[in-house]
C-alpha cells in the first residue's frame, strides 16, 4: 500500500549484489514504491499544513477582520459567529456534509455513501487526490466549508440572534454549500471541469463555491433582515481598524493554504497558485488604494487591507489556471471594482451589508470567476484535453471563447442557488425563531444581550 511505512533503511543494501532478473525487478519495484511513498508523505505534509492555514483564516483571521469593523459593543458576538462555524460546521461535516459535497451522487448533490465519514480513511480517493489520504482531503475541504458561512456573517452583523444564526448556518451549509461544492468539485458534478461536468466551470479554489455563494447570500440576508437601527444616519465606524488590519494580514497568509493547497499536492501547480495568489492580492491593494486616493484624497489602512482581501477573493477561482501577469491584472481590476461596489453602489441602493460581505466576496468572486474564463492558460494548467490526450485551449486569451460562457453558467447557478436557498432558509428560521434581536438588545449590543459578556471590560476613555 502506498501509505505503508517506508522500508527500514539498509533493507536495500541487504539485497544480493548479483542475481536473477526477478531479483532486480523486485528491487526496482521496491525503489518505485519508496519514491511513491516519499511523494505521498510530501504531499500529505503540505496538505495538512494547508488545512491548518485555511482554518486560521476563520479563526482568528476573519474573526479579527470582522470583529474590528463592528462597534465595540458587538465585538465578541461578531467573533463568536465565526468561531461557532468552526464547531458547528465541523460536526455537520462529519455527519453528512462531506458526503453531500464529495460523495458519489447525481449532478447536483452528493449521496449518503460517506455519511459519518464511512469509507473516508487512509486510502486515497484517486478521483480527487491520488497522493493524500482521503481523510486529509476531507479535513482540508472541511476548512472551506467552515469559512464560507462565516463570511456571510458580515452582512447581518450587529443585529441577528445567535440562536437564529446557528440554525440558519446549519441549514445553509447543507442546502447551499454542499450542492455548490458538489456541482463544481464533486465527481459527476454539473460544473466539474476535470471530472466530466456538463458545463466545465474553472474554479480552482472556490470563487463560485465559496465567495459567490457566501457573498450573494450575504446580500440576501442584508436585504431580508433590514438595516441596523440608525443606519445610515448615525455613524457606525469600525471600533478598531487595528484588529481588522491584523485579521486581514492573517487572511492573506492563510490564503496560501486556500489557493496553493487547492493543487492538492506539493508540486509546481501549488507554486503557480501561490504566486498568482500573492500577486493578485498585491495588485488589488494598489487598485483599491489608488481609487480611494483619487476619490477621497487619501489612501487608508482599512482600504489597503480591504483591497488585499478583494484581490485574494478574485484570484481564488483563477489561482491554478493563470500566470503571474494575469494575476496582476485580475487583482488590479478586482481592487477597483470592489472599492466602487462598497463605496458607491452600496450607498446608492442603501442596503446595509454591514461589513461588505457582498461588496467584497460576492462582487469579487463574480468578477474573479468571469476573469478566470478570460485569462486561464493551458500552459499553467492543461485542464482540458481531447480524446487523444492533447491539451486544448483554456481561456478566451487562448481562443476558447466558450469558456467565458461556461464561467457565466457557473456564476449564474451559484447566484440562483444562493438567492433561493438563502431566502427559503431565512423565511423558515424567521417563522420558527425570529431572526433579529429586539430593538432594546440591538442598542445594548449583542455581546451583552446574546452572550452575557463584554469585549473590553477595562475601558480606557478615549
Amino acid at each position, binding site marked *: 500500500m502506498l501509505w505503508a511505512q517506508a522500508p527500514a533503511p539498509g533493507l536495500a543494501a541487504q539485497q544480493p549484489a548479483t542475481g536473477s532478473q526477478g531479483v532486480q525487478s523486485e528491487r526496482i519495484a521496491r525503489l518505485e514504491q519508496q519514491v511513491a511513498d516519499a511523494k505521498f508523505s510530501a504531499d500529505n505534509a503540505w496538505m495538512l499544513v494547508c488545512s491548518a492555514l485555511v482554518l486560521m483564516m476563520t479563526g482568528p483571521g476573519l474573526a479579527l477582520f470582522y470583529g474590528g469593523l463592528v462597534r465595540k459593543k458587538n465585538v465578541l458576538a461578531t467573533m463568536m459567529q465565526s468561531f461557532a462555524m468552526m464547531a458547528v460546521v465541523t460536526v455537520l461535516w462529519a455527519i453528512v456534509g462531506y458526503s453531500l459535497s464529495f460523495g458519489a451522487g447525481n449532478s447536483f448533490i452528493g449521496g449518503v455513501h460517506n455519511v459519518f465519514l464511512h469509507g473516508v480513511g487512509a486510502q486515497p480517493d484517486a478521483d480527487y487526490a491520488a497522493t493524500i489520504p482521503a481523510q486529509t482531503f476531507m479535513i482540508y475541504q472541511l476548512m472551506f466549508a467552515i469559512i464560507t458561512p462565516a463570511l456571510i456573517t458580515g452582512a447581518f452583523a450587529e443585529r441577528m440572534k445567535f440562536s437564529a444564526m446557528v440554525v440558519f448556518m446549519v441549514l445553509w451549509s447543507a442546502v447551499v454549500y454542499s450542492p455548490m461544492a458538489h456541482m463544481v468539485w464533486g465527481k459527476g458534478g454539473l460544473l466539474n471541469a476535470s471530472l466530466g461536468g456538463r458545463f466545465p466551470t474553472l474554479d480552482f479554489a472556490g470563487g463560485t463555491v465559496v465567495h459567490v455563494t457566501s457573498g450573494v447570500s450575504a446580500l440576501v440576508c442584508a436585504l431580508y433582515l433590514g438595516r441596523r437601527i440608525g443606519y445610515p444616519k448615525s455613524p457606525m465606524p469600525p471600533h478598531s481598524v487595528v484588529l481588522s488590519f491584523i485579521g486581514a494580514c492573517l487572511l492573506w497568509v492563510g490564503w496560501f493554504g486556500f489557493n496553493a493547497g487547492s493543487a492538492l499536492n506539493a508540486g509546481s501547480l501549488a507554486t503557480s497558485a501561490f504566486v498568482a495568489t500573492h500577486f493578485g492580492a498585491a495588485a488589488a491593494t494598489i487598485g483599491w488604494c489608488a481609487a*480611494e486616493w483619487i476619490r477621497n484624497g487619501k489612501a487608508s489602512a482599512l482600504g489597503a487591507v480591504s483591497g488585499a482581501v478583494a484581490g485574494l477573493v478574485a484570484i481564488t477561482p483563477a489561482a491554478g489556471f493563470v500566470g503571474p501577469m494575469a494575476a496582476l491584472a485580475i487583482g488590479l481590476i478586482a481592487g477597483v471594482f470592489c472599492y466602487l461596489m462598497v463605496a458607491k453602489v452600496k450607498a446608492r441602493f442603501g442596503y446595509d451589508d454591514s461589513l461588505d460581505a457582498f461588496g467584497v466576496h460576492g462582487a469579487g468572486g463574480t468578477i474573479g470567476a468571469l476573469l478566470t474564463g478570460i485569462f486561464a492558460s493551458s500552459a499553467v494548467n492543461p485542464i482540458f484535453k481531447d480524446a487523444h490526450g492533447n491539451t486544448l485551449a483554456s481561456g478566451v486569451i487562448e481562443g476558447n471563447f466558450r469558456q467565458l460562457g461556461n464561467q457565466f453558467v457557473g456564476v449564474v447557478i451559484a447566484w440562483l442557488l444562493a438567492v433561493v436557498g438563502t431566502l427559503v432558509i431565512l423565511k423558515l428560521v424567521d417563522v420558527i425563531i425570529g431572526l433579529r434581536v429586539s430593538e432594546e438588545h440591538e442598542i445594548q449590543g449583542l455581546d451583552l444581550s446574546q452572550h452575557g459578556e463584554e469585549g473590553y471590560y477595562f475601558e480606557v476613555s478615549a
Partner: protein
Amino acid sequence: MTKIEAIIRTSKLDAVKDALHEIGVEGMTVLEVRGHGRQKGHTEFYRGQEYTVDLIPKTKLELVLADELVEKAVQAIANAARTGKIGDGKIFLSRVDDAIRIRNEERGETAL
C-alpha cells in the same frame, strides 16, 4: 478657593503643566474628554463612507487653588495653551466652598 477647569488642546498639555509648575501649582487632575465649541470636526472615510467626527478629543485640567494664585494660573494656562486658532479651548472659574484632605481631614486652603 477657586476651581479652574481648563479645556485645552491635547497637544498643549505638557506646556500647560510646565507653566503651572513654574508658578508653584502643585496638584492637578487631568482628564481625556471629547467635545466641541466653535471648532468644526473633521471627516473620516471608512470604505468610502464619510463620517463627520464633531466631538473632538480634548484634554481637561481641573485644579482648585487659593485665590491669590488663580489669576497667575489663568495667565499661565492661557499663554501656554494658545495657538491663536479656533479650538484653543476655554477656562472656567467657579467658587469652591471647602476642601478636605482625606488623610488627616485638614480643611480649607491648607488641604490644597
